[in-house]
C-alpha cells in the first residue's frame, strides 16, 4: 500500500464509521484495548442488524459487567447495562414485557457463565425468546486477568499463576443441553461467518446462543506468551476447524489446541410464551386472552 492510499483510507475513516447509525459516536473512543475481539463482534452484530433490515427501534441490548459488558453502552439502541451476571434475567423481564422486541444479551464468559451461569441455563431451559452473545476471551479481563470458568486447563491467569488445573465449561454443550434452539461458535477472525450467525440467531424464535472466541492480547495472551493480536488471529486461522453440526460434546477447547467452530444446533421449538399461551388456552379455552398478541 502506498502512502497516498493510507492517507485516503484515514480520511474516509475520520469522515464516517460505516456503522455510525448503530453506534453511540458521542461515546467513542471506546475503552477496549487495541486488538481486542469485542469490537469485531460489535461490528459483526451491527452488520447483521443492517443486513436483516429490521427496525432498529425494535432491538434492545442488555449487558452485564466486564469488558463485553460495555457493549450496551456503545450500541445506539435501547440499551441496558445491568449488574454482574444478571443481564439474562433482566432481559427475560424485558422480553416478556415486550414480546415483539428483539432482546439481545451481549456479555462476556465470566459474566454469563460464572456468576450468571444459573440464569443462563434456566433461560435456555425455558426457551425464552432472546439471543445471547457470549464473547469468550478465556479470562476475566476487566478486573485484570483472573481465571474464568472458560480458562483452558494449563493456561495462566493472575489467580492461577502456576496454571489452571480445573475443567472449563464447554459453552455450546452447556447451551445445547440446556435447551437452546440455536448454537454457534466462531472466532473473531471469522467475521463473515460470525455476522451470518448473528443474523441467523436474531431470526430464531427462542433462546439462541452465539459464542465468539475473541483475543485478549493485553491479559490472556500476554500472561500466556501467545504474542500480539496478529499472532492470535494467525492462531485462529491455523487452528480453527469448521464443523457444522458437530456434536456439542466434542467441541471442548484445550489450551492452544484446535478450536471447532460452526453451527452446532439449529432446531425449532415453541418458545416460553408459546408454551404458556398454548397451555392456558387448553385450560381456559376461549376465555383466555393470548398474551403478547396485541399491537402496542
Amino acid at each position: 500500500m502506498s502512502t497516498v492510499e493510507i492517507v485516503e483510507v484515514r480520511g474516509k475513516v475520520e469522515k464516517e464509521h460505516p456503522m455510525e447509525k448503530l453506534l453511540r459516536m458521542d461515546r467513542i473512543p471506546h475503552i477496549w484495548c487495541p486488538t481486542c475481539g469485542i469490537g469485531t463482534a460489535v461490528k459483526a452484530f451491527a452488520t447483521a442488524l443492517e443486513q436483516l433490515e429490521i427496525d432498529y427501534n425494535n432491538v434492545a441490548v442488555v449487558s452485564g459487567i466486564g469488558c463485553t459488558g460495555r457493549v450496551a453502552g456503545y450500541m445506539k439502541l435501547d440499551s441496558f447495562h445491568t449488574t454482574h451476571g444478571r443481564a439474562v434475567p433482566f432481559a427475560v423481564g424485558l422480553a416478556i414485557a415486550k414480546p415483539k422486541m428483539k432482546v439481545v444479551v451481549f456479555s462476556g464468559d465470566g459474566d454469563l457463565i460464572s456468576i450468571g451461569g444459573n440464569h443462563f441455563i434456566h433461560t435456555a431451559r425455558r426457551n425464552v425468546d432472546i439471543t445471547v452473545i457470549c464473547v469468550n476471551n478465556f479470562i476475566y479481563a476487566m478486573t485484570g486477568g483472573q481465571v474464568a470458568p472458560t480458562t483452558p486447563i494449563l493456561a495462566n491467569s493472575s489467580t492461577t499463576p502456576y496454571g489452571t488445573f480445573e475443567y472449563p465449561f464447554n459453552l455450546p454443550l452447556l447451551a445445547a443441553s440446556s435447551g437452546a434452539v440455536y448454537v454457534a461458535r466462531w472466532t473473531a477472525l471469522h467475521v463473515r461467518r460470525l455476522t451470518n450467525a448473528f443474523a441467523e440467531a436474531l431470526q430464531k424464535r427462542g433462546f439462541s446462543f452465539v459464542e465468539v472466541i475473541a483475543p485478549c492480547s493485553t491479559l490472556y495472551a500476554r500472561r500466556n506468551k501467545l504474542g500480539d493480536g496478529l499472532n492470535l488471529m494467525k492462531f485462529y486461522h491455523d487452528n480453527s476447524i469448521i464443523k457444522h453440526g458437530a456434536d456439542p460434546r466434542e467441541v471442548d477447547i484445550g489450551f492452544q489446541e484446535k478450536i471447532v467452530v460452526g453451527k452446532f444446533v439449529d432446531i425449532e421449538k415453541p418458545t416460553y410464551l408459546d408454551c404458556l399461551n398454548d397451555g392456558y388456552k387448553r385450560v381456559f379455552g376461549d376465555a383466555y386472552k393470548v398474551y403478547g398478541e396485541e399491537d402496542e
Partner: protein
Amino acid sequence: MTKIKTVKADPRDVLTGEHYLDGNHASAEGGIAAGCKFFGGYPITPSTEIAERISQRFPKVGGIFIQMEDEMASMNAILGASWGGVKSMTCTSGPGFSLMMENFGLGIMLETPCVLVNVQRGGPSTGLPTLPGQADMMQARWGSHGDYEVIALCPDSPQESFELTIHAFNLSERYRIPVFVMTDECVGHMTEKVVIPGAEEIDLVPRRYTDKSPEEYWPYIPEKDLVPLMPPVGKGYKFHITGLTHDYRGYPVINAEVQEKCVRRLMDKIIKNAKDIIWIEEKDIEGAEVVLLSYGITSRVVQPAIEKAKKEGIKVGQIRLVTVWPFPEERVRELASKIGAYVMVEMNYGQVYYEVERCAAGKCKTVLVPHAGGTVHNPEDVYVAIKEAVK
C-alpha cells in the same frame, strides 16, 4: 409541587367485594388491582402465598407470572419488565431479601418503578421460616451497598396489605423507585375481612413518560420534583441506562463530581419530597407524657398495654408508622421536647429505635421494647416499659 395525574384502576383487575383473605393474598390482590402485569418470584416461606395467588390469577387478567431460578433473577426480571413498560412486583422473606439487595440497588440506580413485598420472618440466616420478625427494617434501609434513600410501608392487617400494596405501586411510579412493603409472618398469614372497593375508587399513578421527542430526550434530566421522566422502550429513544455512576445522558462517568450529582439527586428526590411520602397515624398526642411508636403487627399487639396504662391515668400517645422509611424525623424531633419519653416497640433487638433515639437527641427518654421474633410481644412487657418510661 409537580402535579401528578392519576387514572382509575381497570375493573377487570379489581376483585370488588368483601372477602376473607390472609395478608399475603390481600397483598397479591393489591398488586393486581394496581395493574401489576409481571411477577417474577422465588418460593420462600412465609411469603409464598403471594406468588401462588398471583400465579392463579394472572392468566385471567393478562399478566405473566414466572417463577425465576433465584431471588437475584426475580429482582432483575421485575426491573427488566418495568423498563419494558409493565408494572411489576416480587415477594420474598429473610434470606431471599438478602439476595435481592444487589439488584434492588440496580433498581435504585436506574430509577425503576416496581414493588417488593418482604413478609418478614425471624433471622439471622434461615432463622425462623414460619414465624414472625421485624428484623429486616434496617436491611430495607441500608441493605444494598452505597448511599440512597428508600420508601418502606408497613401494613398492620390484610386490609392494609391490600391498600398499601396499591399505594406502594403509586409511590414507585411517582418517584421512580422500587418500593418495599414490609409486612411480617403474622400479617401475611392472618385472615380477616378485606373489603376491595370498586375500580372507580382506586386511583393509580400511571407511568410518568416523557413527552419529549427522542432527539431532545435524555433519561436523567429531572423534573422540578427531582424525578426524571421515563422513555418508552422500543419507540426510537435509543436510550442508555447503567448501574454505573452516570450523567444526565445515562452515560457512565467515573469521577467524584458526577458521583456527587448522581447520588445527591437519588437521595434528594426522596428527602425533599419526604413530607408527601411520610404517612404516620397519631393518636392522643396532645398532652401525652409518653408516646409509643410501633409499626406493622406490633401496632395492634401494643393496644392492651396502652389501655391498661391509660386506666391507671398515664397519658399515652401513639404514633403508628405506616411508612417507616423515610423516617418521620421532623415530627419525632419536634415532639421530643414536649413529652417525657418515647417507647419504641418492634420485633427486633433495636432497629427503628435508633432513629427514635437519634431524633429525640436527649430531649426525652427513649425506651426500647425489644423482641427477637418468633411470636409477637407480650403486651405485659409493653405495659411494664410504659410504666418504666414515666417513672
